[in-house]
């Protein structure tokens, strides 16, 4: 018996550890960009984000003052000062004068630069350079040093991407695309779903089958014909072919099969008695739909709205085909994709932009998870 309890304790412990590992693997990637987006941009490239609470060491370059700042002291010419000026002091551990050997001399030691010229750089950034001959030229000595800076967190990255990288504008564009593209399909789908669930007409079964078939038709099938159609319509009316109206309708079209499918299966499950008693009281289909079906269907309408919102907000393909790439039309996902190309190594820009693009879905998702899960279950357990 004791063995059995011990065994089950060990196995229960194992389950906790296993789940912890899974949770870690699934959250660490997102945590990485969140932490990085809040770090100083020099520190992002100097140390891994998991070290962001430790001081980071980085190699920097500077220039000593020009010859005009020299003073004569004891027959020698001297340049004195602090390379950090009045700026934030960092701890210097080593320095050098050649880019190939930026940490040749430990801080506080005197380096012999030849011809009797000596340089000493101290840990706090103060330096003394002496020479038996007068310094010349209006460019000072190039100097390299390894400094360690305390952890620095900042919201500067957010300010930069929102206001100068165009992410703020794209955020508005994404909202402009998403909200109408979420609202418009709901009503259209709800009426169709009611008719398919509760009205009798020839061809209904066929229509349902067609809609279930359309559920899985790849978007790729629609792109070229619609692009041609939009170009044609645009040319015919002398309008641009890439418009918000165009993408609203496109998202409506692509979202409709799922909307009708999801709403129909829910509406078909509403109790028959309610409909029939309303009908006996003389209510028409229209009244039944507006006064009974719509209010009762609120949960499934919410589910669909969340789905459609997330899908449209996160979409890249439709936006790239049906919207332009100018500042007034480019949505967040497309902008992020463009930044990946143009700002490839600038992780402070990329991580911050990425976090801005995912923050809205995360909020929607966390606050409305219940509806989301319900929709997921209704939408996939039964078929598609």
């Amino acid at each position, binding site marked *: 018996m004791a063995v059995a309890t011990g065994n089950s304790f060990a196995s229960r412990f194992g389950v906790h550890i296993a789940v912890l590992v899974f949770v870690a693997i*699934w959250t660490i990637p997102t945590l990485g960009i969140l932490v990085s987006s809040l770090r100083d941009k020099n520190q992002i490239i100097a140390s891994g984000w998991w070290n962001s609470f430790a001081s980071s060491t980085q190699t920097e370059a500077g220039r000593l003052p020009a010859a005009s700042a020299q003073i004569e002291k004891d027959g020698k010419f001297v340049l004195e000062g602090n390379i950090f000026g009045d700026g934030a002091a960092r701890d210097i551990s080593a320095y050098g004068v050649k880019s190939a050997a930026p940490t040749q001399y430990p801080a506080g030691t005197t380096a012999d630069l030849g011809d009797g010229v000596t340089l000493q750089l101290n840990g706090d950034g103060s330096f003394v350079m002496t020479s038996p001959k007068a310094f010349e030229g209006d460019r000072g000595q190039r100097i390299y040093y390894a400094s360690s800076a305390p952890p620095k967190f900042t919201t500067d990255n957010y300010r930069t991407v929102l206001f100068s990288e165009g992410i703020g504008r794209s955020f508005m564009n994404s909202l402009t695309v998403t909200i109408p593209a979420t609202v418009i399909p709901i009503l259209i789908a709800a009426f169709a779903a009611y008719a398919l669930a509760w009205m009798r007409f020839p061809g209904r079964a066929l229509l*349902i089958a067609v809609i279930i078939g359309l559920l899985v038709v790849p978007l790729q099938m629609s*792109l070229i014909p619609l692009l041609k159609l939009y170009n044609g319509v645009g040319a015919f009316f002398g309008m641009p072919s890439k418009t918000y109206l165009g993408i609203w309708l496109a998202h409506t079209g692509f979202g409709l099969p799922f909307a009708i499918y999801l709403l129909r299966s829910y509406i078909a499950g509403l109790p028959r008695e309610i409909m029939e008693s309303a009908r006996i009281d003389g209510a028409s*289909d229209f009244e039944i739909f507006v006064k009974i079906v719509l209010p009762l269907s609120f949960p499934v309408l919410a589910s669909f709205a969340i789905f459609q919102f997330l899908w449209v907000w996160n979409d890249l393909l439709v936006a790239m085909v049906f919207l332009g790439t100018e500042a007034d039309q480019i949505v967040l996902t497309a902008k992020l*994709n463009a930044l990946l190309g143009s700002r490839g190594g600038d992780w402070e820009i990329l991580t911050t932009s990425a976090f801005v693009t995912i923050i809205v879905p995360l909020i929607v998702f966390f606050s409305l998870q219940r509806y989301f899960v319900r929709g997921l279950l209704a939408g996939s*357990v039964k078929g598609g």
Partner: protein
Amino acid sequence: MAAQIFSAIFVIIVGVGGCVAYFWGANRLVDLIFPSRGVAGAAAIDNLRRQGLVRPWLFVGPAMIILTIYLIYPVVETLRLSFLDRSGINFVGLANYQWAFGDREFRNSILNNIVWLAVVPAACTFLGLIIAVLTDKIWWGTIAKSLIFLPLAISFVGASVIWKFIYEYRGEGQTQIGILNAIIQHFGGQPQVWISLPFWNNFFLMVILIWIQTGFAMVILSSALRGIPEETLEAAVIDGANPFQIFWKIMVPQIWGTIAVVWTTITILVLKVFDIVLTMTNGQWNSQVLANLMFDWMFRGGGDFGRGATIAIIIMIAVIPIMVWNIRQANKETGGH
């Protein structure tokens, strides 16, 4: 920008108002043309019947029109375009298909797609199932599930940036800021440029989709597991089955139907995978897939609609078996309702 916001609000009002006006107006119109109240009995019954004939079509009409324009017509048109040349004017027969199967890039894409299809649905379903079973046993399972579910809300592009940061490469001996290379270097390994490693780079892209979709599989399978009757599990425990036997011989067979649904859903998603490949590699280093290749041909050199359409048709052909299965399944369930 203000104009843009106003136009969006305006469209919401006009769009929703238009829908309401249409449905209400059309409904009124039917009532006016075929009055059922205030007319003689026989005529009222006649008119009611006519109303019943017309009204359903008013309800499904707008949806049918939009579906026809945005999905049904394009399917037919894409099929037609796949037999035409790049301009979409001259008939070329099967030339596009011949080109496709002779093209190195296309064959590479098909091959990669097959690997994606073999790995991603299986990995998501398997991991999702394991996590669903494990989280069911612990008190903080709901929180754990929530966190694993979270990537499902993240866009493929966002996820690509997240993982690109993980795969970030710096030369050997330098401070690695990508966590994967940092771990490798910490244990004395050699840092790698993961997304350009021949063949294996595909797997590093697949990881992203698995990371996103496992939560989906987990939620669906978790709810199916809850549906297994307690008695079955208890009986198995009494009969002395160990946890592995319970899992493989009792749980898995009972939720087989749900596993199939999860598998097919992710399979369809994999066939359409585009964003991840576009943002991570854009098909370089032999990581191309069909959906991205199709997008590429839509615009390459001014766009070759014939070839683009052909690739779309090939993706569609892969989807058709699942489509047929779905329709059959739905017919069985509704029983013609």
